[in-house]
């Protein structure tokens, strides 16, 4: 019967010690431990979420990069093509300009030559005329130095005129 009869002393101490134990453990052990575990759970969740987000962001960034690269490549091709076209055009244009210039210069040169030629001819004509006149004058002067010869010439000229 002793075995199933609770002793007052043990009851008293058990109540006291157990209640104190519950209080102390709750305050100094369970509360900090559980808070920390909860906080850690939250931290892990956050870390996982942010890792997932970072992964997504990275994937987005990669796609964006690829898009940018593609665009850049297209841009480069376009620029190169345009440059080539521009170059061809410039060459063409310069060629044409040069040709036109050359033609103009040629034409001018030809005109100049013509003018010079004409002027030279005119001068030559003038010189020939004045030389002729001089020669004629000298001849006349020499021919007409005696009276006989003068009369003959006059006659001759007159005869010719009559014939006309």
């Amino acid at each position: 019967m002793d075995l199933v009869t609770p002793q007052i002393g043990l009851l008293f101490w058990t109540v006291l010690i157990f209640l104190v134990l519950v209080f102390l453990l709750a305050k100094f052990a369970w509360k900090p431990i559980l808070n920390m575990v909860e906080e850690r759970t939250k931290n892990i969740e956050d870390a996982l979420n942010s890792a997932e987000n970072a992964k997504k962001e990275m994937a987005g960034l990669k796609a964006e990069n690829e898009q940018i690269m593609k665009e850049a490549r297209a841009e480069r091709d376009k620029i190169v093509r345009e440059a080539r076209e521009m170059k061809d055009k410039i060459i063409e244009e310069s060629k044409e300009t040069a040709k036109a210039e050359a033609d103009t210069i040629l034409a001018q040169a030809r005109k100049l030559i013509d003018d010079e030629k004409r002027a030279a001819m005119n001068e030559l004509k003038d010189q020939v005329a004045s030389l002729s006149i001089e020669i004629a004058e000298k001849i006349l002067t020499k021919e007409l130095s005696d009276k006989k010869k003068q009369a003959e010439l006059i006659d001759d000229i007159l005869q010719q005129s009559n014939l006309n």
Partner: protein
Amino acid sequence: MGLLKSLVATCLLLAANPIFAQDTITNQTDTAAAIAPSEKGFDAGEVIMHHIKDSHSWHFYDRSAPDGSESAVAIPLPIILYTDGHLDIFMSSAFDEGKKTVVRGGGSREYILHHDKIYLAENGQLKHDEHGAVLNEAPLDLSITKNVASLMLSAILLLWIFIATANGYKKMGQVPTGLRGFTEPLILFVKDEIAVPNLGEEHYRKYLPYLLTLFFFIWVNNMLGLLPMGANLTGNIAVTMLLAVFTFIITNVSGSKHYWKDIMWMPGPPVFVKPIMTVIELIGIFTKPFSLMIRLFANITAGHIIVLSFISLIFIFKSVLISPVSIVFVLFMDVLELLVAALQAYIFTMLTAMYIGMAVKGGEE
């Protein structure tokens, strides 16, 4: 551990015998017939009962002096007695294992130790009736007995372990290393496997400190009881009764309207059955904690009795040859008891959580 325990328990048993011999000497001077049986030899029942009951000193073994007399090697514990408004405090060694009486208050109060119980002696004697029961009055005994000392020790041990765990988080960060690697899974087990499923997410926080303390208190004390010379604390009816009473109080104090309605006027059965159900439910309020009390007490006490019985075989057969058999059986029982220690802590906490869970939940189902 089993081997060690059987060895030390053997010492204990060897030691226990002379105690009864001394008791017999004391009793022979009594007028009533002696009840101690040890004259006839080894009484396993007496020895086992002596072990599983509380004691006023922490007894290790007995030492024989060359002249044939024996003295106990034991830690004396404080005796605190309250008699007629007087508080008497002295060490248990003053009784000299029951051979002496202790006189206090100028001879007005004389205490005598008999079978680990303290009585008020009359002229240094005890009075017995014809069945050998003691007729003397007993003072209010608030002594630090072996069980109380063990209880204090376990409380210090628990505080030390779990405050160290809590401090570990502050000092070494959130990763559970060292001690926390052991304690944290256990704490989370109580939280996630016992508290949350039974109490629900919205209620468990309030009761978790009690459940955690209960679980570790029962477990640690079960295991301390398994140690050689350990006290049989969780196999003591006073302790299991109080734990059950705490559960009873918490359950009924936190009982919701729905819980009381279910008890007083259960919805469902026909009206003429309802009063019968009310009676059954009202009895149920008390049988639930009562079953908690008996289950823990019986399981732990029975374990101790079985272990001690196997050891007693050696002395019953009076042969060393039986000891290998004893040791194998005791080893097996000790391992089994280790499992039982954890299992009983789990069951007690689990059922407590279930009872509280039933009380706090509203009528959502």
